[in-house]
């Protein structure tokens, strides 16, 4: 009788421990995944798309190298995993602000205003992403770093004015990618 009781007590203990382990694993997993996914970027997509539409024709007609792409959608952007989205977004924003907008010399005031609107909006988005980075919610994997390097390499293959114009013309690709990620984050 006493042995039976001892056995049942041990079984209970074992069950408790396994349940506790399972619970802890689940909690840790959810924390892990939320940490990677939750870096929502407040972005006025409507303004960005509208600004780009107004300069699109002017910019894209000046692009004389039709066979080359810098932000290649098939190879580079579509292959980015959700966990790398924050890092790649941050890097591409930096790419546009550090190189493209600076390298492009715009003379027409109406185009300059639109580019300024886009550049300053990118700056605002960048500040939010930097906060995520400080909170360790924006980890940069090797794939993310390689994808960024591909974009920079593509850019350097052309002369600066042509490269800048081409990258400006490809803003719609970048904006569509940001919008898709934003919708996927809010849906999740």
């Amino acid at each position, binding site marked *: 009788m006493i042995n039976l009781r001892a056995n049942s007590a041990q079984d209970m203990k074992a069950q408790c421990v396994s349940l506790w382990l399972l619970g802890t694993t689940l909690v840790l997993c959810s924390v892990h995944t939320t940490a990677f996914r939750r870096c929502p970027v407040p972005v006025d997509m409507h303004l960005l798309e509208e600004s780009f539409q107004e300069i699109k024709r002017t910019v894209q007609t000046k692009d004389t190298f039709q066979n080359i792409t810098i932000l290649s959608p098939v190879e580079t952007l579509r292959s980015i995993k959700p966990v790398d989205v924050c890092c790649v977004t941050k890097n591409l924003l930096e790419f546009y602000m550090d190189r493209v907008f600076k390298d492009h010399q715009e003379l027409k005031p109406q185009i*300059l*205003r639109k580019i300024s609107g886009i550049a300053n909006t990118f700056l605002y988005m960048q500040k939010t992403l930097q906060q995520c980075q400080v909170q360790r919610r924006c980890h940069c994997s090797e794939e993310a770093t390689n994808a960024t390097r591909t974009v920079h390499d593509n850019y350097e293959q052309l002369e600066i004015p042509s490269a800048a114009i081409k990258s400006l013309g490809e803003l719609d690709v970048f904006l569509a990618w940001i919008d898709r990620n934003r919708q996927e984050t809010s849906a999740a």
Partner: protein
Amino acid sequence: MAGVDRMLHCKRNVPGQSKSAKQTLTMVLKGFRTSIIMWLFYTLIPCLLTDGGEALPAPQNLSVHSANMKHLLMWSPVVLPRETVYYSVEYQGEYESLYTSHIWIPSKWCSPIEDAECDVSDDITATVPYNLRVRAILGSQTSAWSILEQPFNRNSTILTPPGMEVSRNGFHLVIELEDLGPQFEFLVVYWRRELDTKEHAKVLRRGGIPVHLETMEPGAPYCVKAQAQVKAIGRNSAFSQAECVEVQGEALPLVLALFAFVGFMLILVVVPLSIWKMGQLLQYSCCPMVVLPDTLKITNSPQKLISCRREEVDSCALAVPSSEELFQAWI
């Protein structure tokens, strides 16, 4: 002057040294010429610098007044008698000030402008600090640039509760909010007063359009309040004052309608009947049709009856008098 005196003095006292006197004279003349040139130069520089007149003063006291995402840059006007002074406004976002600090962008609506204020809402398109500067223009003259002291960030705009019109269209609760532009969304909250039911909420994407909220039931009034939300700056206004509307009970109008119907039917029936009756009464009172009862009807003439009485019973001569005689006898 001193040099000329010295020259004369030298000439008078030392007649033998004419060559050195000549040299001295040349030197003095050169010095004279140089001093004249220098004098001219010093007097003309200020004239060249001021461009031929008094400098155009720069506008002062720049400030931004911002409410509901409409940003107004204002400054003290430069007043010159009998002159119209124009102003030119330029801006620089935080991106430009960090990455391309020499770039200033002319304002969309204020390059140039005659008023001493400028609506820069279409220029300030991101939630970052913006530098703003103004200068005065008079013909070909321009003043120095006046820069706003503190850069302006549009997230400091004052958000006021939205203007709201709550109305009743039959049993429908309808709300119309003021149109504040595409950057505004509205949160509308409505509930039934005195009934302790939960609040309902609805998000409206634009103002300026009447929107149906709910079909109302009689009893307690419906109360509505609204709040403006601006996603671009992540801020909301305070809620507006609640406005309430009520519908009257349904039973009363139905009863009224029933009574009205019954009354109408009664009228349709009663009125012709009474007219007919009245008609009959009138007929009786003025032109009655008299019918003699049977017992009073004379089948034999009265003469005949009299003659039958007078004479022997057997032979009764039937003498039928004329109708006139009959009528006279009757009267």
